[in-house]
C-alpha cells in the first residue's frame, strides 16, 4: 500500500484538520504504516459467514415525547468562544450567504 500526500491532504480536508507542511512527510509515513497494518484483515476471507455483531441492545429504546431537557448548569453564552444577543457567532462564509 502506498498512500501519497495528496490522499492524506484530501482526508485532512474532509476532516477539517489543518496539516503543517513540515509535518506532512512524517504523517504520510505513519499513515501508511497504520493502513498497512490494518490491511492484514485482507487475510480473513470476505466470505466468512458470521452473525452480525451488535454491541448494544438489539433494539433502541424510545423516549416518550415530553419536554424535559437535561438542564444546563451554565448557559451557552458561558461556553461559547464568541456569543452575542443570544447567538453563537462565526466568521461569515461566502457561500453561506446564499442559503
Amino acid at each position, binding site marked *: 500500500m502506498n498512500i501519497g500526500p495528496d490522499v492524506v491532504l484530501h482526508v485532512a480536508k474532509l476532516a477539517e484538520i489543518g496539516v503543517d507542511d513540515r509535518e506532512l512527510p512524517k504523517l504520510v509515513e505513519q499513515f501508511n504504516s*497504520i493502513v498497512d497494518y*490494518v490491511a492484514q*484483515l485482507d487475510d480473513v476471507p470476505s466470505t466468512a459467514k458470521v*452473525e452480525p455483531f451488535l*454491541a*448494544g441492545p438489539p433494539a433502541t429504546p424510545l423516549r416518550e415525547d415530553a419536554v424535559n431537557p437535561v438542564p444546563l448548569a451554565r448557559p451557552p453564552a458561558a461556553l461559547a468562544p464568541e456569543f452575542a444577543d443570544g447567538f453563537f457567532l462565526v466568521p461569515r462564509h461566502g457561500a453561506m450567504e446564499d442559503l
Partner: protein
Amino acid sequence: MSATAVARETGARLAKAEADGLNATLHWSQAALDAEAARVDALPAGGALHAVPIAVKDNIVTTDAPTTCASRILEGYVSPYTATAIERLRAAGAMIACKANLDEFAMGSSTEHSAYGRVKHPLDPARVPGGSSGGSAALVAAGVVPAALGSETGGSVRQPASFCGVVGVKPSYGRVSRYGLVAFGSSLDCISVFGKTVDDATRVLRVISGPDPLDATTKADRPALEAPAPRADLKGLKVGLPKEYFPANLHPGVRAGLDRVIKALKELGAELKAVSLPYSKYAVPTYYIIAPAEAAANLARYDGVRYGVRKVGPEGDIRALYSATRGEGFGAEVRRRILVGTYVLSAGYYDAYYRKAQTVRALVAQDFKRAFGTGVDLLLTPTTPTPPFKAGEKTDDPVQMYLADIFVCPVNLAGLPALSLPVGRDGGLPIGAQLIAPDFEEARMLGVAAALERVLRPAAEVR
C-alpha cells in the same frame, strides 16, 4: 471518620503525588474536596461509598471542575451537566477527589499523549503507567485514592491496571451508562473501574451500574450486578486458557506471573482447559479501523463554534477556523486517528475497511461465544505482553504502541466483561493477569478474582 477528615487526608496525598512529579492529576483543589466532604457529611451515612474519595478520568464530565480530555482543544472547558456515573457515585456518598490525567481523548496506551505532560509510573518514573487511563491507575497504585474511574475503548483500564499493579475492571458493554463519558469509539467505550483491591473495584462498579434512560445502549433487561458471593475455594470452576494468548515469545516475567495464577487456580480446585480464539489475532487491526472511524465522527463536534478553544486561521473564514482550531487543538495521535478514521469511511474505501472490520469483529466475538459454549466459565490470559515499558520507547511508532493492547483489545470488540488482577512482580514491576467472563457475568468473574487475590496478594505486593 468524617468525610471532612477524609478530604483533608486525600488532599495531603494529592499534594504529595503532585510534589513527587507523578503528573497524574489535571484538576483538583482542597476547596473542591472540602465542598465534596461538606456535601457528603450532610448525607445520611450508610451510602455504599460513604466518604470514599474517588479519582475520575478527565474524560468524564463534571460541572465543578474542567473536563479537558487532556486536550488543548478543551482547555478550560467546564461541562454544564454531570455524567450519570458521577451522579450515582455522589448519591452513594462518594467524593470526587480529582480529575485524572489521560492520553488525549483516551487515545493511547502509555498516557504519554497528554497535552498536559506524561504520567509517570509510581514505581519507576522512567516508565509509563500504561494508558489511556494512566492517571487514574497511578493514583490508585500510589495509594492516593482507593478507587478511580477510568474508561476503556481498547483496554485502557486493564492495561494500566496491569502496569501499575492494581485491579482494573471493564464491565460488559451496556452495563454502565456512557452519558457524560466523552465519546471516543462509541460501540466500544465503557466507563471502567480501578480499585486497590477487587472489593474496592466491585463496590464502585455496583454503584455506577444499571440502565440509564439517557443512554440508548445500556441494557435495561439485564439483572443488576449483585455482590459476588465469597468463595472459600473454586471447586467446579472451569477456566479456559486460550492458546493464542500464550505465545512462545511471551515475556518470561509475564509467563511466570500467569504460572502463579494457574497454580493458585489448581490449588483452589478449579479445572483448566485449553481453548482457542483464532480470530483474536485480528482484534488490534480491527480495532484500529472501528475505533478511529467512530472517533472521526465523535470528535467532529470540536469545531470552535459552540465551546472549547477557537483558533482563527489566516484567511479568517469559517473553513480556516475549522482547520486551524482542529489542526492546532488536537495532538498528533488524535489527528492521526481522525485521519485514518476518515479515510476508512470515505467513498471507495468503506467496504474494504469499515465493513470488513465489522465482519471480523463479529468473528472475534463469535470465538468467545463458542469458547464459553464449551462449558468454560471464565478465560484466563495475560493482560499485557510485557511489564511496563520505558517512556519514549513507542511514541514514534504508533503500531508498536497499539500492540501493547493485543490481549485486552479483543474483549472490547466482543463487549465482554474482563478484569486485570495483580499477580506478582518481575524485576519490581507489576504483572497482571486477565480474567474474561461471558456477557453480564461480572459477578462470577469478580468472585473468582477475589478468591485469587487472597492467594496471590503476597506475591503481588513483594517488591
